[in-house]
C-alpha cells in the first residue's frame, strides 16, 4: 500500500478489502489479516497510528471510520472462515442420499378417523356429540323406537342378550329416546358408538361394529331440512360434486324413511365393481322421526318434528381406503395400521 496516499485514500483501500474478504480463499484471508489488521504493519494499524499527526476534527472522523472498518473486516473474515470450514467438511464427508433420523409415527385407526370426521362435519351443522350405554334394555333398544318384538322388522336385529330384557344395543338409536326423554328440543346430536349384531364374521359383517346416529328435533323441521342436512353432509364429507340419492325404505322409528345413496367415489357414478355397476353406494338409513317415537319419549308429536339417521363407520372407511374385508379392521396388524399414519 503506497505510503504517500492520504488517510482517506487508505481508508477506501481498507473498505475494498472488506468486500474482497467475503469471496476470498483461505490464503487471501491470511494475507488480508496481515496486510490490514497486522499489529506491526497492518494498514489499519498504520492509519490509527498516524492519527496523532492530524488536526483534531479530521482525527475524530478518520478514527471513527477506521474503527468501524476494522470491526466490519474482522466480522467478514470470521464469517468467510466459517463458511470455508463448512464447505471443506461438507461435500467430502456426506452422502446426501442417506436417510434422516426418523421417529415412530402412530396412526389413528381408520374407523376412528372416519367417525371423528363425520362428527366434525355435523358439528358444522349444529350437532353436538354424545354417547350412550352399549348394554341396553329391550325397552330403549326396541319398544320406545316403535320396533315391536312381535313384528318381523325385529328380525333384522339379531340380538345378543345379557339377561332377560337386557341386551347389547343393536344400533345407536336408543340414544334418540334417552336424549329426547332428558331434553326439550331443539335437539341436534350425533352419537357414535359400538353396536352388536349376532352375525358371524364374513368380509362385510362383524358381530361388533361402529355406528353413528344422528337426531335433529325442533318445531318445523321438515323433510326438506332432512334432505338438505344429509346432502350437505355428503358433499362436505366426500366431495362437493358428489350426487346424493334418497330412496324410500322402511324403519319402524322413522317415517317417511329413506336409504341414502352417495354417488360411487371410485367410478364417479359410471359403474364399477365397488358399486356393483349401479354408480351408487348405500351410506345410511334415515328418515323423519316417527310420531310414535316422540309419543314414547314424552315429546309432543304435533308440535315437534325431526329427522334421524344412522350409518356404519366401517363401511365408509372400507370404501374410502379400498379395504376389501371388514376383518382387516379388527386384526390390529402393525403393517396395516401404520399405513394410516398422518
Amino acid at each position, binding site marked *: 500500500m503506497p505510503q504517500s496516499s492520504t488517510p482517506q485514500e487508505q481508508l477506501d483501500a481498507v473498505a475494498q478489502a472488506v468486500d474482497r474478504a467475503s469471496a476470498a480463499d483461505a490464503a487471501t484471508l491470511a494475507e488480508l489479516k496481515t496486510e490490514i489488521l497486522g499489529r506491526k504493519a497492518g494498514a489499519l494499524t498504520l492509519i490509527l497510528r498516524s492519527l496523532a499527526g492530524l488536526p483534531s476534527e479530521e482525527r475524530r472522523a478518520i478514527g471513527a471510520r477506521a474503527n468501524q472498518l476494522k470491526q466490519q473486516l474482522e466480522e467478514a473474515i470470521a464469517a468467510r472462515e466459517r463458511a470455508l470450514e463448512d464447505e471443506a467438511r461438507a461435500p467430502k464427508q456426506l452422502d446426501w442420499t442417506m436417510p434422516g433420523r426418523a421417529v415412530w409415527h402412530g396412526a389413528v385407526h381408520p374407523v376412528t378417523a372416519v367417525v371423528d370426521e363425520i362428527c366434525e362435519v355435523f358439528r358444522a351443522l349444529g350437532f353436538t356429540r354424545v354417547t350412550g350405554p352399549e348394554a341396553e334394555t329391550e325397552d330403549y333398544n326396541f319398544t320406545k323406537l316403535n320396533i315391536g318384538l312381535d313384528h318381523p322388522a325385529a328380525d333384522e336385529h339379531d340380538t345378543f342378550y345379557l339377561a332377560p330384557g337386557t341386551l347389547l344395543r343393536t344400533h345407536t338409536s336408543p340414544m334418540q329416546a334417552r336424549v329426547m326423554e332428558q331434553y326439550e328440543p331443539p335437539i341436534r346430536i350425533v352419537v357414535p358408538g359400538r353396536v*352388536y349384531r349376532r352375525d358371524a364374521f364374513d368380509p362385510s359383517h362383524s358381530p361388533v361394529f361402529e355406528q353413528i346416529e344422528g337426531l335433529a328435533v325442533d318445531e318445523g323441521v321438515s323433510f*326438506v331440512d332432512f334432505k338438505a342436512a344429509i346432502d350437505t353432509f355428503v358433499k362436505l364429507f366426500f366431495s362437493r360434486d358428489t350426487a346424493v340419492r334418497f330412496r324410500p325404505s322402511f324403519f319402524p322409528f322413522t317415517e317417511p324413511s329413506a336409504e341414502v345413496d352417495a354417488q360411487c367415489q371410485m367410478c364417479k357414478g359410471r359403474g364399477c365393481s365397488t358399486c356393483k355397476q349401479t354408480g351408487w353406494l348405500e351410506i345410511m338409513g334415515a328418515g323423519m322421526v316417527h310420531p310414535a317415537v316422540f309419543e314414547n319419549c314424552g315429546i309432543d308429536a304435533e308440535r315437534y318434528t325431526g329427522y334421524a339417521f344412522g350409518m356404519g363407520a366401517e363401511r365408509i372407511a372400507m370404501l374410502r381406503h379400498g379395504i376389501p374385508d371388514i376383518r382387516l379392521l379388527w386384526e390390529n396388524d402393525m403393517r396395516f395400521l401404520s399405513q394410516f399414519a398422518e
Partner: protein
Amino acid sequence: MIVSLNWLSALLGRDLAAADVADRLAMLGAPVEAEEELRPSLDDIVIGLVEQVERHPNADRLTLCHVNDGHGMVEVVCGAPNVKKGAKYPYAAEGTVLPGGLKLEAREIRGIVSHGMLCSARELELGTEHEGIMEVRTDAAPGTRFLDALPLEDTRLELEVTPNRPDLLSHKGVARELAASYGVPVKLPPIPDAPGDDGGAPKQVKKKGTVGGVQVSIEDLEGCPRYMAAVIRGVQIGPSPTWLEARLRSIGARPINNVVDATNYILYELNQPLHAFDLANVRGNAIIVRRATPGEQMTTLDGERRDLTPEMTMICDGEGPTAIGGVMGGADSEVSATTTDVLLECAYFDPPRIRKTRQALKMNTEASYRFERGTDPDAMPDALRRAVQLIRAVAGGDEPEPAIDVYPKPVKTRAVFLRQERVTHLLGTPVEREEIERILVGLGFPVAPKAKRLHVQIPGWRPDVTREIDLIEEIARCRGYDTFPTELRPFRTSVVPDDPIEPLKATIRRVMTGMGLNEARSLSLTSAGSEQAWRVLNPLSAEDAYLRADLLSGLVRSAERNWAARERDVRLFEVGRVFHATGESRPHETQRLAGVISGERTPLHWTAQGKSADYDLWDAKAMFEEAVRVAGPEGDIVEVDGGWQVLDRDGARRGWVGALAADRPPWAAQLLGFEVDLVVWERPHVQYRTSPTTPPVERDVALVLPEGVTAAAIEDVMREAGGALLAGTAIFDEYRGAEMAGRSVAWRLVFRAPDRTLRDREADEALDAVLAALKERLGVERR
C-alpha cells in the same frame, strides 16, 4: 321376493323393460337386488307342423310323421301317443344339441330313418311332462324359432321387500306399484282352459257351515278370524301344463303336481297362501280351527314330528290336527297321486301368532312368511274363486258347490284422516290437494273430503298403513323423494351438551400416536371369563361368550398375532369400554386406555452404527405417566410388584403399568403394557408463569444411596433443603459396583435466583445445605 318380468307384463298388459322396472321400483322403495336373464338354450329348436301321421310299418306303438320344418318335409319317427295331424310341436333337427347335452343324429328306428325328433316338455327341460310331446298352440309358421313362438325367455328380478310391505310379496302387489307409476290398471290375466262356471258366491256363515259334506268351524277366533274352504271333486293329479310350470320355474319355484302348483301360483300371484287337503284323508267330515292342546303332536309334510303348544292354531279334522294353520300342512292329508277330491283352504291367520308359531317350530315357509307380515282378508273370496278355476283348468274336476266362508266378526274397512296442511308442514314444501288425491287413489286408497280433512280408506292389502304419517309417506314416496328440494334452512343450535369423554379420547389419541403407538380396535366380546366378566346369554361361540373386562388382554393377543406375522415391533394402544358385573341388572361400563410396546424404541438409523435399543420398563412408565396426566384420575403413581399403579384420591387402583406375560417367540422383545381408567375431571387451564431471565448455575453431584433409599426420598429432601434457589433436579446416571454398598446415583441440580445473577459462592452454599440435609436425614453422602 323373486318376480318374473313376463308375469308382471301380463298383469299390466304391456311389455316391460327390466332396467326401467328396476329404476322405478328402487325409487318406490323395493330395489332390485339381483337380476337374472332366463334364456333356455333352445336356440336350434323350431316349430314343426305335423302334416301327416302314418303308423310305423314295423312297430305298433310308433308313428311315422311327415313334419314341415319350414324348409320342407322331413320324416320323423315318433313314440308319443298324443301326436296329431295338423298340430305344431317343438322340432329338433339332426345336429341339434338338446339341453341335457344329447346331440341328435339321424337314426334308424325299426328300419326307418328318423330325421330329428318332436320333443316333450321334459326333453326341453321346460317341465316334467313326459306322457307325450309338447303341443304348441301358436300362429307361428313352421320353421319359426321355438323361443320366438313361446314366451320362455324371461327376466327374474329379486326384490328387496321391507317387512312392512307384505303386499309386495306377490306379482299383483308389485304390479299395483308399477301401475300407479305407469298410470295403467292391473288386470289379472285369463286362465287358459278355465271353466265358465265358478260355483257361485260363497256361503257366509258366522260360526260354522258345511261345504261338500264337510263341516267347517272356527274355535280359535284370535288365531284365525276368517276361514274359507271349497271342495272340488273329480280332479286328476298329474303334471301341470307347460305354461303353469314355466311360470313357477321363472321365479325359481319347483313344480310338484297340478293341484299344488295351482295353489302356489295363486300364492305368488295374489299373496294368498292356500292349502289343498286330500278330502279322503279329512277324517270325520270336519274341519275345526282351534288352538293346539298342551303336549299335542303331529307330523308335518316334511316328515318332521312336531311338538305343539296352545299358542299355535291347528287345522283339525274329526280326529285331530291335520295342519299347522298358516305354517305347514300335515303329512297325512297331503295331496297325492291318488287324490281325486280336494278341500281347498283359504284363510287369514293372526300375524303375531304365526310369528310365535314359526319361531317356536324354527320353520319359515312361504305361507308363514306372508301370514306373519299380514295378508289381505278382504281379498280372500276372489283368491279362492280364482284358485278353484285354476285347479279345474289344470286338474279337471266337477263344478263345485259354493265355497263356505266362516267369518264371525268381519272387520270394517279402516279409514285414516289426513290433513293437507300437515302434509305440507312435514314435507316442507307445498303439496296440492289434487296431487294428494291423485296419488292415494292411484294406490287404491279411496279418498273423500270430510270437514277440513280427507277421509282415506285403507285397502286390505296395506296393513302397514294405520295413521296419518303413513299416508304422508305414501305421498312423499309416490311423488318421488327427488322432487323435494335440498335447501339448507336456518336451524336452532342444540340444547344437548357435548359428552366430555369424547374430547378426552381425542386428546389421548393425539398423545399416544405422538409417542408412536398405533390405535387398535379389539372386539368387545371375548372368550376370557373372569369373576367380574359378564357372560352373554346367547353367544355365537365360546370365542365371544363374555364382555371384555379389560383392554390389555386384547392387545396382548394382538401383539401375539403381529409376532406370528413376523412383525417384531409392536406399538399399540386402544381406547374403549370394558364391562363389569357389579350386581346391577346391566354391566357397569368404564372407558379405558391401554397400550402395549415391544421391540425397537426408535426406527433403526445408520448413525447408531448397528446398535439399537428395545423398549424397556422406563419407556412404559413414561407413557403411563403421560396417559395418567392427560386422561387419568387425579392421584399418585406408586410402585407395585414389578410395575406401578395409579391410585385415585380414594385410594382405589385406577391403572397399572408393567411387563406382560405373552406367548412370545424367542426373537421377540419383552412386552410392556399399561391400562388406565379415563376420568373426566375439570383439568385447570395452564396458568402462565414468567420464564426466568437470570442465568442458571448447575452443580453435578454423585450420591451413594444405601439399599432402601429411593430417588424420590432424596429429591424430597433436596427440594426442601434447596429452598427457593433450587430450580430443578435431574438424575443423569446410576452406577452399581462391587466396591460400594448400595449404588451411586448422579444428579444435576440447577440453582437460580429469580431477581439477579446467582454467584457461584451462593450456589455452593445452597448445595452444601442440600448435602448436609441428605446426610442428616438419610445418611446419604457424596460418592
